[in-house]
């Protein structure tokens, strides 16, 4: 056996190790995706179906029925579906974390001289990069339906940034949900709960067209802020900006995901340490 060069690096800082470990874990998830691109399907199925159903099948009828001010329904719809895509990525996150626990991969990583936080951070980084691919696919479909962005490049990048923030928040919710789950099957039940949560927002229908008791909660749904803000950035029609949420959409689209992450990330890290009990 050849001698090992394990200790050969000149002691990098703890953070450097954390970053390196995070990237190794993230790359693992991305390599998985190259082997099994069908794992994206779970995430993409609903947004792609939504593009087909709301955009193609019901698009004209819905557009005629609610006359979105300032434009066409499909232009209004697509940013909602982009945010929906970010939200549905949570299923992939939760299943992946739960499978790693059941399969013993998490235990193995915990018995290595690496920081356990990197296991979760790596998952989150992989989620963000995967989300970029998913977003590109849904955008391409949207473009086929006639969606386009009318803003400048800066506005486009800002919109991507807001969607990435939203995905980060959902990534940490997914990690937190996946950690105590006894297996991927149990993780699936959260996924079905997500469906109404993602629809009761400013995603496919403007909140002011919902029953009044529902429009309040719907506009406070974290998805709504991101959807309205990205509609503005893409230059797509955004419905009447009458509510407080709509007026402060951009600020909320930053604040909501940061607040969710600030709550879920420490809880997830505490939970992974508590597994040792």
């Amino acid at each position, binding site marked *: 056996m050849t001698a090992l060069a394990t200790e050969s690096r000149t002691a990098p800082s703890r953070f450097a190790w954390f970053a390196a470990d995070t990237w190794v874990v993230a790359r693992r998830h991305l390599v998985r995706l190259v082997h099994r691109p069908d794992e994206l399907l779970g995430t993409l199925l609903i947004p792609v179906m939504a593009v087909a159903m709301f955009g193609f099948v019901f698009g004209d009828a819905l557009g005629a029925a609610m006359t979105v001010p300032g434009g066409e329904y499909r232009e209004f719809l697509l940013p909602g579906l982009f945010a929906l895509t970010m939200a549905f990525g949570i299923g992939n996150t939760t299943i992946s974390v739960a499978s790693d*626990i059941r399969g013993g991969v998490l235990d*193995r990583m915990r018995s290595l001289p690496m920081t356990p936080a990197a296991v979760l951070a790596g998952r989150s980084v992989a989620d963000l990069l995967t989300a970029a691919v998913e977003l590109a696919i849904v955008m391409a479909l949207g473009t086929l339906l006639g969606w386009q962005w009318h803003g400048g490049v800066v506005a486009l990048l800002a919109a991507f940034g807001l969607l990435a923030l939203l995905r980060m928040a959902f990534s940490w919710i997914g990690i937190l949900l996946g950690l105590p789950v006894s297996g991927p099957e149990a993780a699936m039940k959260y996924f079905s709960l997500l469906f109404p949560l993602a629809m009761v927002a400013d995603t496919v229908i403007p909140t002011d067209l919902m029953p009044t008791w529902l429009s309040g909660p719907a506009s406070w749904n974290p998805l709504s802020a991101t959807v309205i803000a990205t509609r503005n950035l893409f230059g797509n029609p955004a419905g009447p900006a009458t509510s407080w949420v709509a007026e402060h959409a951009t600020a909320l689209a930053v604040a909501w995901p940061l607040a969710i992450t600030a709550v879920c990330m420490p809880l997830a890290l505490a939970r992974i340490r508590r597994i*040792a009990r």
Partner: protein
Amino acid sequence: MNTRTSTANTRPAVRCEGLRKSYPRRGVVLDGLDLAVAPGTVHGLLGPNGAGKTTAVRILATLQRFDSGRAEVAGCDVASDPAGVRARIGMAGQYAAVDEVLTGRQNLVMFARLHHLRARAARLRAAELLERFDLEAAADRPVRHYSGGMRRRLDLAVSMIRSARVLFLDEPSTGLDPRSRNEVWEAVRELAAGGTTVLLTTQYLEEADRLCDRISVMNHGRIVAEGSPAELKARVGGSLDDAFLDLTGRPALLTPRSSPPLRSPDTSRGPRDGMRGVA
């Protein structure tokens, strides 16, 4: 079969004294466990389901905390220096803890990187381990196409990335067919011959008899007997089977677990019959 003699004067590679652990729901799992494993030996923790074998090994591998007592692995205190322990051990749980979608080589390189080997060193180490565990031909195939024995060997290879001084194996042959089991035993023997201390849990007498230099019989969270396979047999003047029944009050062959261990699937278990007669 095991002719190596335990080196009596050296410090134990694994030692625990009065180890206690209880859970709110399961109650007392470890009830004052005392254990000393001589370096370079294969030591078996033999016992029925629920005896506390897995908990003991998980505690020693720093995966779980314990309530009281002392534990030391490779000269490092488990409670106060878990990082020191982690740097010196390898661990293979009851299920091959590898990524099913990745290839064998990709798994090895990834875990080597997480062991903080440089990229080149990780690739070299992966190639070396693939050869040593006879997995070269399957190296670039996804693990989900591997046989049970190949998975286990890959799992062993991953746990040996850092040439661990002490290797913990939790039921290394559970769910394997006889041929795969022999492959795994062969790999474990080679590791021990290379100087690695192996502590394994098993509920199979045959495995304990043929693989271990010493056996600690465990029941209700403590050691009820210890010795070489020959010594244990001599004690009851019969087979190891009789010794097991005598010590634990239970026959050695067990029906599949009624309650699966924490966070473990119970689907891939092979039939338990067909092991009798050899022990």
